[in-house]
């Protein structure tokens, strides 16, 4: 017995170490993407001698890329007269801090191109550009030097004003409804059949003396569906804690595992059964998609859970999991916003939450003011979107038939 416990502790430590290391690695991924920088190619000889047959591009214009985070300049030019020549090998863009000397290679553009975005320009320093045409023999002909341009970051992206307004409306609606719910106002949510069955599913597992298997998808915590799945897990865990039913949660992501352990632990504590919580039942399996499937399928056929819940983001593994779950006779409830996987859950599960219903689930189950407010806020936005669709369709139809101009709709849709 003692030996088993020691071995279990050892296994927990190894699993925790692997999961913790992966979690730490995941945390620095953001920094990795932000800190990555391409080396600048070495300076090239400044031969300005143009081969006779290749015409240089003219009208070289430069501008600081608008609405960006800096270090970027847009270079445009007019096509070389030899753009379609067989000897033509493309345009090469050069940058220098001096208008006459010191030009270094910045990048290249193909035949027919008239623009290039230099993403390695220095911030807040004036630079000059030349565009060269290269021929098959390795010769280059340079355009005239452009005007000076200074790359700089912008704090405000005015192309996204519409997104800002939409987010603002969304946030205001959520705050309003959260306050309303906290103030005791009854907020109505229509019936969701799949979620009404959660209680029955937990009850069934309790009566059969079998565990409940909860699978929160293969995505990371950055996925909205995973966050929704974790919220639902909290509510399911409260019910399993009340009924004293075993809840097994195999995880595919170390951060998700850590969060889910906390959520389940808290749920057990909330219903007054902290001792019933078993940390080993919320565990890390593997990050590899089909290795995870193999592991979960093994759990299904050996533990034979009475109820299986699939909530979150799923990929190609959805049908393999759900078919195995069906083969062991479990009642299955699925919920995902993965459009390509929904058909498989619909055909192989007893109940399926489609897309947005997954996000509504945690509010529906818990009736907590914050979550209810969020759901009502979403509905408000959906109502506004519905009205906007009707208006824009009418305007587009009138514009297509020549009755009016639809130019005034442009600001609504500006996003790049």
């Amino acid at each position, binding site marked *: 017995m003692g030996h088993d416990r020691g071995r279990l502790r050892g296994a927990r430590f190894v699993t925790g170490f692997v999961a913790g*290391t992966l979690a730490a690695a995941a945390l620095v991924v953001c*920094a990795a993407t932000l800190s990555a920088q391409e080396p600048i190619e070495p300076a090239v000889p400044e031969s300005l001698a143009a081969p006779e047959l290749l015409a240089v591009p003219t009208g070289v214009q430069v501008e600081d890329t608008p609405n960006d985070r800096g270090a970027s300049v847009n270079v445009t030019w007019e096509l070389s007269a030899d753009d379609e020549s067989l000897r033509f090998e493309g345009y090469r863009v050069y940058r220098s801090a001096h208008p006459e000397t010191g030009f270094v290679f910045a990048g290249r553009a193909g035949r027919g191109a008239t623009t290039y975005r230099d993403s390695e320009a220095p911030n807040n320093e004036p630079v000059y550009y030349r565009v060269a045409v290269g021929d098959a023999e390795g010769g280059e002909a340079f355009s005239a030097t452009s005007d000076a341009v200074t790359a700089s970051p912008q704090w405000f992206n005015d192309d996204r004003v519409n*997104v800002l307004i939409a987010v603002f409306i969304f946030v205001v609606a959520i705050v309003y409804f959260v306050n309303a719910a906290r103030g005791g106002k009854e907020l109505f949510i*229509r019936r969701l059949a799949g979620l009404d069955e959660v209680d029955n599913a937990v009850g069934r597992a309790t009566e059969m003396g079998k565990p409940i298997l909860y699978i929160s998808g293969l995505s990371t915590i950055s996925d909205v569906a995973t*966050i929704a799945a974790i919220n639902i897990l909290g509510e399911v865990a409260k019910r399993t804690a009340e009924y004293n039913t075993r809840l097994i949660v195999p995880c595919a992501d170390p951060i998700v595992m850590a969060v889910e352990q906390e959520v389940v632990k808290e749920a057990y504590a909330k219903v007054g059964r902290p001792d019933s919580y078993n940390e080993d039942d919320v565990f890390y399996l593997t990050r590899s998609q089909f290795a995870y499937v193999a*592991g979960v399928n*093994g759990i299904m056929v050996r533990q034979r859970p009475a109820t299986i819940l699939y909530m979150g983001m799923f990929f190609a593994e959805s049908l393999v999991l759900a078919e195995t779950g069906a083969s062991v006779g479990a009642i299955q409830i699925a919920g995902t916003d993965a459009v390509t996987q929904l058909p498989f859950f619909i055909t192989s599960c007893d109940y399926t939450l489609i897309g*947005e219903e997954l996000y509504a689930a945690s509010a529906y189950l818990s009736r907590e003011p914050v979550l209810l407010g969020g759901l009502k806020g979403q509905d408000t936005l959906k*109502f506004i979107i519905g009205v906007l669709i009707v208006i824009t369709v009418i305007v587009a139809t009138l514009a297509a038939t020549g009755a009016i101009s639809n130019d005034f709709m442009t600001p609504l849709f500006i996003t790049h």
Partner: protein
Amino acid sequence: MTTLLLATVGAILTLCVYSFLYKDNPFYKFAEHLVVGVSAGYYLVIYTFNFIVPNVTDPVFTLNLGGEAIRLGGLDWWMALAPGLLGLLLYTRFFPKIAWIGRWPLGIYVGGYAGLGISPVMQARVINQLRAGATPLAGTPDPFANMTNVCLGLVIFIAVTYLLLVKRQLGARNTGAKVGIVALAALVGYGGYVALSALSGAGVVNLTNVMLVVGLLGTLTYFFFSMRHTGVLGVLARIGIVFLMVGFGASFGYTVMSRISLLIGRVGFLIDWVGMFFS
């Protein structure tokens, strides 16, 4: 020889996994534990050398050792150190007395991603969808007119047949009457197709866009949770779920086709493996 050996290992493991189709057995268990263990270890190495080493240990420790090339004093150094320290805090979970500190990085991570996700989601899933939905219902050429009209003609045929045969129970005891009703429904469906073709051909209405807008509004209504789906809302939600199911059906068929091709690929591998022994 090495190729044959590796192919043999792959083929045996493939057969071990396929043995699950019969029932759970020791061969499947072996393959399952092998793939889970190997993949967990593999990802540990991948994460360590692709993320932790180049982004945390390299910049931070080179700085401490007085290295030259690392972005000293720059923001990047702090950007590497901060998540590295937050990652280390996760290990406090092993020490019950300070395990609560492990919640800090989790809170930052979850909250940060949720907050960062709002703007892109609003742009990609709301604004861009809204833009795509702003289609004219008339006055533009419809490249899918014929397909749409055929589909709508079929819908009319099915609807009339269902109404007369199932709902009204007409011709319940007479096979000839049933055939007549089906023929009548086919005629009505064909008439509908001709009429719709005339309308779309004359540019009066763009039926493909009409279907798109109706489907869009119906689907949006289905996901409206604040009101009961009765009356007009109920009709729209019903239309929405029909559109969803048609879409799911198409997606199901398409994906099953791709899965079959995966199976063919695996069976092809096994056949090639057997062939290796005879070549």
